[in-house]
């Protein structure tokens, strides 16, 4: 089998560890968006532990999954234990959406629909200046409803930004309801515009890694089918975990579900 298979247990154990951490951190900080963190954490782990090189860029366009990013950056040693421990406390540099200037955060995000254009600008310069490196950007599927995503989608095709890779964390939920756009429609829109579109299981490390590393002569969209709250059965696909945070005795119970 390929190299990926041998690495799968490593990523899986990191994922279990970070999922448990996220339950604790969310509870301590009373922070929202644990469902979204858990739907994209496997993608972030794969990016940071198997894919990103020194010439690559990454933008977390769905900035509300910041705590998942912090967990990964802390595990990588990019964020200090002190900073990581400050989440939810007064004076913390780790807000619920990434702040500008934080170590490991290339672009401050939080308002949806911004990241794809910024990533396209970075990818454009790399292409024009013949520099190596891929620009990755993680979007939410609810975020894909923003009109600015449509604008960036068309621009990336015109400029043939083949080293631009956008991943959609497609957990099918927005804040209050199911998303208006489903994965099928996102796929159709981007395919019709000229993107190379791959649809994968967003919790399968092999599939994620293979998709992130694939080459194309067009910009690439990876629709990662994910589950809100993935890894904790009693949270999975339940809208309330977009905003709720674990507390009290539930923390222990949630952690015991992670394996």
């Amino acid at each position, binding site marked *: 089998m390929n190299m990926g298979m041998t690495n799968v247990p490593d990523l899986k154990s990191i994922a279990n560890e970070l999922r448990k951490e996220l339950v604790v951190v969310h509870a301590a900080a009373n922070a929202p968006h644990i469902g979204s963190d858990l739907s994209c954490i496997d993608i972030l782990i794969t990016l940071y532990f198997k894919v990103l090189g020194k010439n690559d860029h990454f933008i977390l366009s769905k900035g509300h999954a910041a705590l998942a990013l912090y967990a990964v950056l802390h595990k990588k040693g990019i964020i200090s234990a002190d900073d990581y421990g400050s989440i939810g406390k007064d004076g913390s540099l780790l807000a619920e959406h990434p702040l*500008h*200037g934080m170590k490991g955060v*290339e*672009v*401050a995000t*939080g*308002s949806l*629909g*911004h990241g*794809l*254009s*910024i*990533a*396209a*600008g*970075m*990818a*454009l*310069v*790399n292409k*024009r*200046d013949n520099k190596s490196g891929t*620009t990755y950007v993680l979007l939410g599927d609810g975020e894909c409803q923003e*009109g*600015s995503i449509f*604008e*960036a989608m*068309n*621009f990336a095709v015109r400029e043939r930004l083949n080293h631009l890779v956008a991943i959609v964390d497609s957990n099918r939920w927005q804040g209050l309801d199911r998303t208006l756009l489903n994965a099928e429609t996102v796929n159709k829109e981007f395919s019709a515009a000229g993107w190379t579109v791959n649809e994968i299981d967003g919790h399968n490390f092999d599939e994620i890694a293979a998709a992130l590393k694939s080459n194309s002569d067009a910009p690439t969209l990876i629709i990662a089918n994910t589950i809100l709250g993935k890894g904790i059965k009693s949270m999975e696909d339940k809208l309330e975990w977009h905003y709720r945070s674990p507390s009290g005795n539930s923390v222990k119970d949630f952690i015991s579900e992670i394996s």
Partner: protein
Amino acid sequence: MRRAFVNGLLDIMGTERKESKELTYLLAGDLGFSAFENIREDYPKRFMNMGLSEQNMVGVSAGMAYAGKKVFLYSIIPFLLYRTFEQVRNDLCYPRLPVRMVGVGAGLAYADAGATHQPLEDLKVADALPNLTILNPSDAQEVGLFMQKIDSIKGPSYMRLSKNEDIVLHTEDLRINIGKALRLVTGKRILIVSSGVLTKVALEVAGLLNKGEKGAAEVLEIHTFKPFDYGAVIGSARGKELIVTIEDNTGALAEKVASALAGKEVQKFLSFKLPDEFTHVAGTKEYLFKSYGISTSDIYGRIKSVMK
């Protein structure tokens, strides 16, 4: 004014070419017909028509700036600043990226185009954004000087231009410092503070006043609206009997000057500004300004009646 902007860009790009650098780009929101032909011909890779996608244009410029480029953005002001407000705020101002927004159609320059094209409140809107430098030149020469000094602005900037007419107010030996007001005329009794293209009117009014009474009126031009040179306003206002503001916005300048002088001894204050409303009819900008009482003769008459 637009020609001065284009010439300034050609100079910057020419210098970079001599140094084998490729740093400066011009991104346009599908506007600039018969304005950018020279740039497109001489520097085809440095000009991009971003199409009718202004939000994307601002976001892309941020990405390019992160990657080390110096990007100019060009469009009609409402599309450049209002459609994109959050991109400008979060993607340019917050990380303080050196993206230079250049908007055309300041105030009533697009009088005949209707209310959608007229930014009557853009100075107020832009002034609300931290880290943004706001340049409001009064003539083509100032535009050229701003272009020469644009690199000294470390964060994002917004320069508002009138249209393609080449206003000439200043002499060739003009020197300007970004953030420092210009005292164009000195006088003892009346201070006229102006910003932007209506500085021409301010100078005409001062000319009439000073013809009647030598050394009566002083003119202070605010070419950099942000950071605002409060000190110059306070200094020039000292001892004056009347303070006058003239602007093509709905009170942005008047409010700045009033706040600068709050708590100071001021005898009288007259502000010539646009009303807080949308224009109702089309016409020339002279017609519309006149309908709002903003013309050399109207302003001169009002000042004379107050000073009698």
